[in-house]
């Protein structure tokens, strides 16, 4: 029997290793898998490369992971925010490396990894500092930059409901990076409000088919808070 459900967040993240690359879903706090991140912090491994849209908000989730000093490098599009003070401090102290990626290229590179493409030519960023040193090409009258897929060892994702095969649905704009990160990571670990019986999710409306998910943990419904 295929049963991808795990007892606890700590069991689900127990093999995340020192130096791993970890995608973390969420846009600001919407879709941030706080319980999985808390378990990762408790696990104690460091030197992590994190892929997320932001670099943490306030005191919880990714911000707490950064505060705990576990992040070596972050690949994101929008680190600087009014409440990104833990990242800001580490960055200014030279303790964290930043790879800044335009948001759509971040999404496209994650999707390319999940889809097994070798590289993509994207128009975004051409002629800017974020394309410096990158290969460019004019295609059909438009300039493009060559960008490579972003793979990861693990993805930590928050979804709404899941089943034991790993099928997922999301809630409102908390969907954001979840579906594409699930496709791009070797091991995708998902916290859901509720694990439902097989068949409870309509096959027409499953957003992430279970093939992209390795572990599901029920952590109960949690309201996101303002970023």
């Amino acid at each position, binding site marked *: 029997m295929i049963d991808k459900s795990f007892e606890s967040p700590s069991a689900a993240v127990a093999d995340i290793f020192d130096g791993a690359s970890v995608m973390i879903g969420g*846009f*600001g*706090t*919407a*879709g941030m898998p706080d319980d999985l991140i808390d378990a990762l912090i408790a696990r104690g491994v460091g030197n992590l490369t994190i892929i997320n*849209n932001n670099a943490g908000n306030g005191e919880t989730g990714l911000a707490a992971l950064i505060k705990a000093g576990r992040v070596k490098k972050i690949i994101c*599009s*929008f*680190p*600087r*925010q009014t409440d*990104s003070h833990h*990242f*800001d401090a580490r*960055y*200014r102290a030279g303790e964290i490396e*930043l790879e*800044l*990626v*335009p*948001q*759509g*290229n*971040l*999404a*496209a590179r*994650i*999707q390319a990894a999940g889809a097994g493409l070798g590289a993509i030519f*994207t*128009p*975004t*960023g*051409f*002629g*800017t*500092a*974020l394309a410096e040193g990158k290969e460019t090409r004019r295609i059909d009258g438009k*300039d493009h930059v060559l960008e490579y897929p972003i793979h990861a060892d693990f993805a930590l994702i928050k979804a709404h409901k899941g089943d034991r095969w790993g099928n997922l649905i*999301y*809630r*409102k*704009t*908390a*969907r*954001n*990076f*979840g*579906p*594409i990160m699930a496709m791009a990571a070797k091991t995708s670990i998902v916290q859901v409000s509720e694990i439902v019986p097989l068949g409870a999710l309509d096959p027409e409306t499953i*957003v992430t088919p279970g093939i992209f998910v390795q572990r599901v943990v029920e952590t109960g419904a949690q*309201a*996101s*808070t*303002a*970023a």
Partner: protein
Amino acid sequence: MNRLSRDQIAARVAKDIPEGAYVNLGIGLPTKVANFLPVDRDILLQSENGLLGMGPAPAPGEEDWELINAGKQAVTLLTGGAYFHHADSFAMMRGGHIDICVLGAFQVSVKGDLANWHTGDPSAIPAVGGAMDLAVGAKQTFVMMELLTKEGESKLVERCSYPLTGLACVSRVYTDLAVFDVGPNGASVVEMVDGLTLDELRRMTGVALTA
């Protein structure tokens, strides 16, 4: 000379958004445009974090923090709206499906180059978000800004000195003093506030302007 307020600039931008348009409003100043869209037009707002058909802010206490916009503010969804993931959302933007995006700017060049993501200050922490995608992907990119900095320097320039967001991507610039078209043929003045002359505007901006 009758300088426009920020709300008045937003209202002026809104006037140019036609019925049926798919529109992305950048974070900051452009967000105000939503307040001035005529109620008799169906205009659909896209937010790059993954929704189409964005409605107004919810009543206080009614916020759902899993229903937010690109500026991470609580919003609502109109009847007929839809949610989608980030790759599909940026496919909408990069793929030319958005009719109009409205962005703020530090500088815009007469050729339509845009600088709006970084002041170039080496001590600043850079952040780009979706600005570069929006700039190159929408069918039309409008900029909305005050024409002059606090120090009186023109933000409409011959050539951007700030780091670029995109090349030759802006088509129209709405400011407190005038509306400009920009592009391959340089900048032309679409309209000016009452009491301003073309010569004064040329002096203020220091760039070549056609009427």
